[in-house]
């Protein structure tokens, strides 16, 4: 614990969410302060002599020069312990439900102080160590069942090691001592409630390569542009192109044990949507409501802008805490652009030298150090547990123009780029991920994993499918110049298959009860069937089958409806292979066979 020293000053200047206080000698950067008679929460951004520039996390209207400013000498921190899952926090970890109760109003009033973790609730603590055991930081002292699906692991805090001299089984509040650790005579009391400064990443033991997939149930993602556990991805796109829906889809269907969802400067209703929907939807992995593995953080666009900047750090610190327990955590941030804009706004008020488009020169490093907190690793503790944080950030480029600084700096550090395309969205082709310019740097690393699972066919199928779409784009150019009749029969087949790939595989309706999620098994079968039809079709064309008949075979309608098959019925897709053969052989003219042979 750092020494806490209280510093008291007075307000000198107020400009929007920036307050400058005088008489602050001894205060440090990043310390939390309470401002004015209301005790608004803020954080010191800059110290200059006895003056401190403070970003205020609440609306400043009504503040006056001369009102007090008090620094507690502690950086902005989150509370860690059981009770985080299923919570709905604001940007600085205040539970929004408690804010509602304290304000006695549906509006967020100011100066409300509520604890992040319930102080009264008793948790049933089950020790995993005995008195006399040697422990080091990160070792699991015991567990608490936080929700039906999340076992909360209470760890030895960083900086502490020694012999367990006391361990308390049974019902405890988060503030009660559950263990005492004796470090050569220095006694450390450990509670379930621990704290961590949000701007400092929590250490890990070793980093691992991202070669395990994190499936999302979204076909264009899993099959074409996959993300790995511990990976980083970004989804840039203009408004209405589907950033939020795809983030919600990930939060619902991603194969992660814990989901941290941060709504950063976006719509209030989108958070309400998650809040109302997640308790009702079951996680396909556990059969339990999705909310049982989820924590939500919201600084919606009408909430104070400075807390927007803090919200992503609050989120990633909570994610790190669960990673340290040994979980795979997925963090969705919608939208990182709003965070960057909050940074720009404060930088402007501090009168810093503006960089590109008014963003501060340190935008790139800030983004990079945020995404660096993702990763798959062996966490601290003797047992060598593995944990991961996968970070997916939405980016909202002004006018959809990707050349702007936030997108460009994000692309420099993230490994997957899902480029959303306004034209696809206008055609209601969702997810509107442009298959020609998106990429994933994990694709090759993950291929061996799926090839092993799917009889060495996976990577071949994907490569072929991507190739067909690429060819379609080139053929489309020709069609636009001289018409479809200029294409050869083989080329027409390519166009048909590419269309089938787009409409029957890549297109996926998030709001259709079945189509919304596809297992890898189902994705594989669908892809294989479409490609099989392509091969059989080409063969039939070579043998003289009429193109019209081929393209209008009844089996094509079955192919188009594969996506609506429930997971329990996907074996039916296998049977389509025979149907394809059968129907195609029916349209090959007699003697055609000999022709080809």
């Amino acid at each position: 614990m750092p020494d806490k020293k209280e510093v008291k000053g007075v307000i000198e200047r107020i400009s929007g969410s920036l307050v400058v206080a005088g008489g602050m000698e001894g205060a440090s950067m990043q310390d939390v302060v309470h401002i004015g008679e209301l005790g608004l929460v803020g954080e010191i951004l800059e110290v200059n002599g006895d003056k401190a520039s403070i970003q205020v996390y609440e609306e400043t209207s009504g503040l006056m020069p001369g009102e007090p400013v008090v620094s507690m000498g502690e950086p902005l921190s989150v509370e860690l312990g059981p009770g985080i899952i299923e919570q709905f926090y604001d940007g600085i970890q205040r539970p929004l439900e408690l804010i509602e109760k304290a304000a006695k109003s549906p509006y967020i009033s100011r100066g409300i102080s509520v604890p992040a973790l319930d102080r009264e609730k008793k948790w049933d603590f089950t020790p995993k160590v005995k008195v006399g055991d040697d422990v080091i930081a990160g070792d699991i002292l015991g567990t608490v069942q936080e929700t039906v699906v999340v076992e909360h692991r209470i760890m030895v805090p960083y900086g502490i090691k020694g012999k367990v001299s006391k361990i308390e089984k049974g019902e405890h509040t988060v503030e009660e001592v559950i263990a005492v650790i004796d470090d050569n005579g220095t006694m450390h009391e450990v509670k379930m409630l621990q704290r961590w400064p949000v701007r400092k990443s929590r250490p890990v033991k070793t980093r691992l390569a991202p070669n395990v997939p994190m499936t999302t149930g979204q076909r264009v993602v899993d099959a074409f542009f996959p993300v790995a556990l511990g990976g980083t991805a970004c989804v840039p796109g203009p408004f209405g192109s589907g950033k939020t829906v795809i983030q919600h889809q990930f939060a619902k269907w991603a194969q992660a044990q814990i989901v941290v969802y941060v709504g950063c400067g976006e719509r209030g209703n989108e958070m309400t949507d998650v809040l109302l929907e997640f308790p009702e939807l079951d996680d396909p992995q556990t059969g339990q409501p999705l909310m049982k593995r989820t924590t939500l953080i919201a600084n919606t666009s009408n909430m104070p802008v400075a807390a927007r900047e803090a919200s992503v750090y609050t989120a990633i610190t909570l994610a790190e805490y669960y990673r340290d327990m040994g979980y795979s955590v997925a963090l969705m941030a919608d939208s990182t652009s709003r965070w960057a804009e909050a940074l720009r706004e404060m930088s402007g008020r501090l009168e810093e030298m503006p960089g590109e488009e008014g963003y501060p020169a340190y935008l790139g490093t800030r983004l990079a150090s945020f995404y660096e907190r993702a990763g798959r690793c062996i966490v601290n503790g003797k047992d060598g547990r593995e944990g991961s944080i996968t970070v997916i950030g939405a980016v909202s480029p002004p006018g959809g123009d990707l050349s702007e600084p936030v997108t460009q700096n994000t692309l420099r550090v993230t490994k997957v780029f899902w480029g959303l395309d306004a034209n696809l969205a206008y055609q209601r082709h969702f997810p509107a991920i442009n298959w020609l310019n998106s990429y994933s740097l994990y694709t090759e690393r993950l291929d061996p994993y799926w090839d092993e699972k799917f009889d060495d066919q996976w990577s071949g199928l994907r490569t072929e499918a991507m190739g067909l779409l690429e060819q379609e784009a080139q053929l489309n150019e020709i069609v636009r110049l001289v018409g479809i009749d200029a294409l050869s029969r083989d080329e027409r087949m390519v166009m048909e298959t590419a269309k089938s790939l787009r409409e029957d595989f890549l297109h996926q309706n998030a709001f259709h009860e079945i189509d919304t999620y596809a297992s890898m098994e189902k994705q594989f079968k669908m892809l294989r069937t479409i490609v099989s039809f392509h091969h059989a079709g080409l063969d039939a064309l070579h043998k003289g089958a009429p193109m019209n008949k081929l393209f209008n075979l009844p089996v094509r309608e079955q192919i188009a409806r594969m996506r609506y098959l429930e997971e329990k019925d996907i074996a039916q897709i296998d049977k389509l292979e025979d149907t394809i053969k059968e129907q195609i052989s029916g349209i090959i003219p007699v003697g055609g066979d000999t022709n080809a042979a």
Partner: protein
Amino acid sequence: MLPREYRTISSISGPLMMVEKTQDVMYDELVEITLSNGDKRRGRVLEIESDRALVQVFEGTTGIENDDTKVRFLGKVLTLPVSRDMLGRVFNGRGEPIDGGAQLIAEQNLDINGMPMNPFSRDYPSEFIQTGISTIDGLNPMVRGQKLPIFSASGLPHNRMAAQIARQATVISGHEDFAVVFAAMGITFEEASFFMEDFRRTGALQRTVLYINLADDPAIERISTPRIALTAAEYLAFECNMHVVVILTDLTNYCEALREISAARKEVPGRRGYPGYLYTDLATMYERAGRLKGKSGSITQIPILTMPEDDKTHPIPDLTGYITEGQIILSRSLHRQGIYPPVDVMPSLSRLKDKGIGRDKTREDHADLMNQLFAAYARGKEAKELAVILGEGALSDEDKAFAKFSTVFEDKYVRQGEYENRTIKETLELGWDLLTMIPVKELKRIRDAYIEKYLNPLLKAKAEKGNA
């Protein structure tokens, strides 16, 4: 606290003035300015540095002199007196009556900036509003509590369309207490009187509150006008339990006033000179739409903005689209073809449609039908483009069908009368009727069951007619 009076204006710049040697001034405090000729103006504190306060003057600073002007700090932020009696009244952009009627007797005085709604306290909007306009009801359905702007451009009939929506908007489940709050920002007298006349003629005026800042009214006043209107709306919706539709027009004029202040403060300009906080500023207004748990009222917002140079990527429509729950975009090309309402279907969007439609709300087939109409129209338009280059002959038979579909779609589905109020059932039937032009196997977005139930009878009837 006593109001304090100063004669210490040290500098004036655009709509801003600096007042020196101030004491106990609050951030955002309301200010009253008395000119040497006795004229009174109002303003608010934008920034305080020790004993200097930067004040934004709502009516502008012309005529203010450094020595002879008195500045009083009123010890409160700008508030609006509200009561149910606002209904039927006309106010100026600062909230003062201009209809010759009495001053309002306030039930409450509310801070015009409002407070952020707690997302935990929100209720998700899901109650379908029938506007009687097919391109909205059928393709971009609106729900109570939604914020759905109209992106227009100069010379397009956005006012007529907004008036039609205000006139026709009903909820399927029946009539309830409703009100319209109308805020004009920098529009012409002619435009404002068009709305007033329409409200009067349809008898809606008694249920309407109007705040009017015209083109020749002070520009800086426009910063407050929408906030005043929304404060009135919040009172009517959540204190008086009414369903309130707020029409804000024209947001482009609002943003220009904001840019003017930002320039006067010498702030680092963002895109096209608009301040970097334009997004946040707009969000604090747009996000005041919605529903609250445990309250029966609602605020539905229809902001109207004109896109400079018809450019959707201009910061005003762009940032609006990032905040609002969709957008209805008007098309100049449809307007030129004489199609009213000229809704550009492809880029228009209602984000809250999914929970507002379907069985028990509109009809089970609504979502599938909507998706199919979009897909078919997109394909038809593409085919038509191709036909322009290569000639009709280059199209496949299917593409020909789609091309024809898209033409008829614009003529029958998009086009409708200004007083034509289509029920949702009529709109859905019209959609199915148009789909009969397309080969069934191309209707991939629709479940078989619905094709069976809604399309096949139409196809059968068509075939019988053909035979006869």
